[in-house]
């Protein structure tokens, strides 16, 4: 008995310790109330069902606890022998049923509202990619990609983690408040799920299908979420950041976006870039777009994500093959088409970087104009079989490749 009491006391102590630790750290214990009517409705449903569970739990565990204390053999309690009571059975089947009916009514109403995405003020198309989001403002003609902006040094513990570690992006989605925004959600590759807890919006992004969701945001602010459906290796690294602005600020942002969009492309492409400039930009772009799969050191994760250091594509000729694969991707594999995501300068920089970084010292320089030329022509779509053949040919006949490819062990 003494031992049991002691154990019970230590259990209490431990649970209070856990609670106090969490209270100190101000960790969140409950679902956020959110900033949309929908998230408020969901929160209310959540609290209702939670309290129903708590009340039922208190009753059931109360009766059980009473029996455990009062009806123990060590107190000399004699066992009764009753084992059936039809009325009691009927009551405890019917009463929970009625509670569920009561609960189902508000849940049904909220669900109806959730599915009513009629008359939106604006529509944004969201496309999931491994591992980034694309936002297209269908009424405005602007679109951009949103990548994780937390540096690798923080993820690999080489630098102190900032406050919004893993919850920050380079281009957040910007939306106005007090407007019914419809989201059309789809995917380019595997299934993702777009989730912003503060909006009460979570919808799966399915390749080949378009799902709908909507939100009307009450309060300006920055809202953060994450991809909720396992979508491959970097599933944990594709956050969502939404900035909700007042109508006036939103319009100003829109105007700025449209003007920037125009100037960025034309002048840079015509300019002649030096190899140093391209390498510098290339490193930056490579680390954002390519390094998640092909790794910062170009070693990749074969066979799904081949090594680029010493690879037949990144060191061999023609250079156009290298550019084409970046532009169009390789169908049926994880290599996506970057032609839509990146402009000519970025692709030129990445290609140059990949051809010269690590031990790929090809000395090749790819200018933005080279990329523009490839964009203009009808290109061959490379398949994984073709590239595999190319790769094997290089391994079996090392004497046919140039001496620069001595680093081909990186391709293993």
């Amino acid at each position, binding site marked *: 008995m003494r031992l049991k009491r002691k154990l019970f006391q230590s259990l209490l102590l431990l649970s209070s310790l*856990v609670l106090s*630790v969490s209270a100190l750290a101000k960790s969140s214990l409950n679902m956020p109330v959110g900033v949309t009517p929908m998230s408020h409705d969901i929160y209310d449903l*959540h609290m209702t069902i939670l309290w129903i569970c708590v009340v039922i739990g208190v009753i059931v565990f109360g009766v059980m606890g009473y029996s455990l204390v009062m009806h123990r053999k060590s107190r000399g309690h004699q*066992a009764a022998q009753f084992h059936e009571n039809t009325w009691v059975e009927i009551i405890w089947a019917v009463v929970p049923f009625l509670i569920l009916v009561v609960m189902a009514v508000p849940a049904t109403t909220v669900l109806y509202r959730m599915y009513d995405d009629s008359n939106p003020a604006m529509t944004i198309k969201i496309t999931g990619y491994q591992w980034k989001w694309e936002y297209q403002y269908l009424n405005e003609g602007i679109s951009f990609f949103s990548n994780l902006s937390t540096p690798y040094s923080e993820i690999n513990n080489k630098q102190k*983690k900032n406050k919004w570690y893993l919850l920050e992006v380079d281009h957040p989605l910007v939306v106005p408040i007090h407007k019914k925004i419809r989201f059309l959600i789809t995917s380019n590759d595997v299934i993702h799920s777009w989730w912003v807890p503060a909006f009460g919006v979570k919808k799966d992004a399915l390749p080949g299908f378009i799902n709908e969701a909507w939100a009307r945001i009450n309060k300006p602010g920055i809202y953060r979420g994450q991809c*909720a459906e396992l979508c491959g290796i970097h599933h944990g690294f594709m956050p969502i950041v939404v900035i909700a602005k007042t109508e006036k600020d939103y319009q100003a942002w829109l105007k700025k976006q449209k003007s920037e969009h125009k100037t960025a492309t034309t002048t840079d492409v015509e300019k002649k870039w030096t190899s140093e400039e391209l390498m510098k930009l290339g490193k930056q772009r490579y680390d954002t777009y390519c390094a998640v799969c092909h790794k910062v050191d170009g070693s990749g994760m074969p066979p799904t994500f081949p090594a680029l250091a010493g690879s037949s594509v990144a060191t061999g000729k023609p250079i156009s093959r290298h550019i084409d694969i970046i532009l169009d991707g390789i169908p049926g594999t994880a290599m996506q088409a970057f032609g839509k995501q990146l402009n000519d300068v970025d692709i030129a920089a990445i290609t140059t970087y990949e051809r010269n970084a690590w031990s790929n010292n090809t000395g090749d320089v790819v200018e933005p104009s080279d990329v523009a030329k490839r964009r203009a022509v009808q290109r061959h779509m490379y398949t994984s079989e073709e590239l595999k053949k190319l790769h094997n040919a290089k391994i079996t006949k090392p004497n046919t490749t140039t001496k620069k490819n001595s680093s081909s062990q990186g391709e293993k």
Partner: protein
Amino acid sequence: MTEAVVHAHHGPDRRPGIIGWIARWLFTTNHKDIGTLYLVMSCFMFFVAGAMAMVIRAELWIPGLQIVNPHFFNQMTTLHGLIMVFGVIMPATVGFANWMVPMMIGAPDMALPRLNNLSFWILPFAFTLLTSTLFMKGGAPDFGWTFYAPLSSTYGPPSTDFFIFSVHMMGMSSILGSLNIIVTILNLRAPSMKMMKMPIFVWTWLITAFLLLAVMPILAGAVTMLLTDRHFGTSFFNAAGGGDPLLFQHIFWFFGHPEVYILILPAFGIVSEVVPTFSRKPLFGRNMMIYATICIAVLSFLVWAHHMFTTGITLSAELFFMYVTMLVAVPTGVKVFNWVSTMYKGSLTFETPMLFALAFIVLFTIGGFSGLMLAIAPADFQYQDTYFVVAHFHYVLVSGSLFALFTGVYYWYPKWTGRMYNEALGKWHFWLSLISMNVTFFPMHFLGLAGMPRRIPDYALQFADFNWIASLGAFVFGITQLIFVFNLIYSRYKGKQATMEVWEGSHGLEWTLPSPPPYHSFETPPEVK
């Protein structure tokens, strides 16, 4: 109990030496031997998959990537889930069925002994194949135990094909095993044992076996379609070829939801045997318990899309699956109320099996509550794919199925071996498991509500506190399980002799046999009162 009966013949005739020993276990057709093989294998796999859980929790100890890379992390979550479901809980419950069903219905053995041998020996090969993928080029399957297409089809690693074949083998084993159990229960009962007189454990297993027969072929179909999508140019799940990735989820969960009940119904059966024994009072509402189990089994076929509330299924589908899922709470509630009523005005004692059964009732009910919350479709839009779901299914599978298996092992161990387990070690195992289990999984509710998605190798700083608490709990839980294994091995040789009845309040045919029971349980059918 006379010495002569205690030492009755309880082993097979076998050739001497190591060859004889191997041949005995390899070719055995005895229900007890095969039951032991099932239980030993699932215990071993429990530590394999448990080690993977330790890797997962070690990586999640603090924010940042420390121990493993995200690719390996995903392999760990995938294999942990697959092995715990198919390699631990399922074989262990089949092991219980093998040991207990013939003894509980008054039969000499299972109806189809050679089939029984085959259904076990498929499994070690299946799991060797599955775990060997860890050493393959491109790594093990990394798409979660639910292997959603197209992540597992177009984007799956080469080892996916090995995974597909190992699932085929597990499915074959389950189908053969459940056929055998159905045939045994329907044909080999002692003549005086009418259906409604069958022990609850036998009832729950009969229902489970039908569920297995119904859904394992569906899983086999799903993986076969996956295989043809990967290699033979079909497009079942590929939208680009006119297929539908959601089709995969419908098929998977049409298997997957009954599968959840396959994991829990035998656990219900074990607890329904143990609670009356230590309450010294018959099970309350016995017939209702049977009807409730049948009811749960039928409903399990009608709720699959509650795993898919956020996939964009139509409003009417959302409503239908929400209502039916909420309905599951009624028969499940009936079971919990009946267990509590069985204890009410009983004469309770708290040996290790009873402690685990009590923990089962309380913690499984908590898992049921979070399940009810998840059933509310609009709220599920916030819970889906977060740690709230992880907390939910670990409450029903760890403190549910697993604790019920511990209950059963402690309860029947003296019958199986003829020796008592060590009660002090049993209590240590219980209290440490109970505390560490809750320290591990309760904070996960908070993490999920605060917005932490599941299956991520690294997380934002706001989730740091509860993650280290959960990891701490997990490590203690993992180490605690060594006490369990030590107790079983130690008591096998050093435990006190067990009597025939073992427990003061024991009831049922298995307790009319000596401990350990003879090799062929009942050679003449017993009379059931």
